[in-house]
């Protein structure tokens, strides 16, 4: 047994270490395969979700298809195809570092801790954490969740903040949104916390949206960015150029209206403040 243990451990560690190390840049990889592989969500309307017609669509996916793909094709001088893979908060960084995907385009918040392992594009959406509760619930925000059972998404920044600010809240973390919502529906938990926009999305998709309400002031700042492998500035520049092009041409705001406008999947008006912030991220040509 002992004689076997050492080689097994070496193998396990060796595999873990060998996989992420790869010399070529992402642009080179895409040039060779002709495919951009993104990791995105399947149940986070309206950013990325599977709709009623069983199509995998959303705002984040549109940004990639209409902004980043054209920028890549232009840079590499040939058409690039898009491939979508599912990624969840716990899997997205490993998917990137293992080269399984090239870009995370979903609902990932840009944080300083995450910047230690991945690089982010410019911010393409701004939101903050709130709570989804039953209409009759006494919960009004983060100030009234002490000793309550709160569901959160595993690996999200919201869970982290609650653990630090309200240690008495009973936090239950689920790997995906449907399970957390089901727990809320059945009463296993009193509230579900996530980024406000995602809660509005969930509410809009619920069988009876009027039974639910989104409450509380933003208790976190959640700037969404697209994540890439670290230290690959050529690829990052192309991604950022694609996004800037979308904002500058106004196409971004058309897409925003398509998904968040009054007749969109999740009505969520763009504040003038956020609009200015987006425009100011665009650097001159």
């Amino acid at each position, binding site marked *: *047994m002992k004689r076997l*243990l050492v080689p*097994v*451990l070496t193998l*396990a*560690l060796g595999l*873990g*270490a060998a996989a*992420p*190390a*790869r*010399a070529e*840049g992402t642009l080179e990889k895409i040039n060779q395969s002709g495919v951009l592989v993104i990791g995105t969500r399947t149940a986070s309307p309206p950013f990325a979700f599977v709709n009623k017609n069983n199509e995998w669509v959303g705002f984040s996916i549109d940004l990639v298809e209409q902004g980043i793909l054209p920028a890549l094709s232009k840079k590499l001088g040939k058409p690039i195809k898009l491939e979508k893979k599912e990624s969840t*908060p*716990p899997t997205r*960084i*490993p998917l990137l*570092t293992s080269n399984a995907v090239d870009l995370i385009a979903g609902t990932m918040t840009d*944080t300083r*801790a*995450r910047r*230690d*392992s*991945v690089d982010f594009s410019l911010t393409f959406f701004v939101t903050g954490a709130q709570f989804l509760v039953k209409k009759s619930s006494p919960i009004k925000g983060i100030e009234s969740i002490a000793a309550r*059972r709160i*569901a959160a998404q*595993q*690996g*999200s920044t919201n*869970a*982290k903040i609650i653990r630090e600010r309200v240690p008495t809240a009973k936090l*239950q*973390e*689920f*790997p995906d949104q449907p*399970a957390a919502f*089901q*727990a809320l529906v*059945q*009463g*296993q*938990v009193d509230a579900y916390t996530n980024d406000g926009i995602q809660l509005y999305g969930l509410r809009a998709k619920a069988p009876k949206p009027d039974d639910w309400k989104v409450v509380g002031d933003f208790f976190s700042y959640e700037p969404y960015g697209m994540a890439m*492998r*670290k*230290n*690959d500035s050529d690829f990052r520049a192309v991604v950022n150029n694609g996004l800037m092009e979308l904002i500058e041409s106004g196409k971004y705001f058309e897409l925003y209206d398509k998904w968040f406008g009054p007749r969109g999947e999740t009505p969520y008006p763009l504040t003038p403040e956020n609009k200015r912030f987006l425009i100011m991220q665009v650097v001159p040509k």
Partner: protein
Amino acid sequence: MNYTFQWSVLWSGQSGGWLLQGLITTLELSALAWLLAALLGIVSGAMRTVPWRLLRTLATFYVEFFRNVPLLVWMFFWYFGVPPLLPEAVREWLFDHGAEFWAGMFALGVYHGARMSEVIRSGIQSIPRTQFEASVAMGLTTFQAYRLVIVPIALRLIVPPATSESLNLLKNSSVALTISVAELTFQTRQIETYTARAIEALTAGTLIYLVLCVGIATIMARVERRFAIPGLIARGG
């Protein structure tokens, strides 16, 4: 794109405490589920070999129903499906006292009980029929024959496959994170969230599972040697 390892994330800050908490939860969950699985497995495994048809049918139904549905589905069943069947007061009490832990325990225990049952049945069926006949001839009732002769011998015979099954149970306890049980795999992901260091956290989790499983396997190998019946169970080497 080279990845620089930062192993210190595993012991700096709260990481060490989380890993320990996760380890304790995994052990608690697995130990309780194992007891349930062993009990259900022995009872239903024995029932499948008794001379009464009704008991055999009942046990067969239990085994085939529970082992042929994925564990993940059972997790959701016990967590989401069972509580609405309980009275309101019991349900509220459960929700306040770690419903997810108990749901995970039942899901694991009942599922692995069905698998354990097959192991035990094969042990019982490998005992020559004459053992049972001799017991009955000596005046034991069928129940006594099982309790005093058949099951004790079968349990000694099945140590190797039962060890595999127990290790499976331990590793399968990680599925409970889907219903928000904060066990070991959950905690390694938690460390990843806080430090964004996935490979280090996953390696720590992998090593802990490996050490646990190798440890249990070693203990079980000793148990097997210690309780082997000389002359009845042939041993290699």
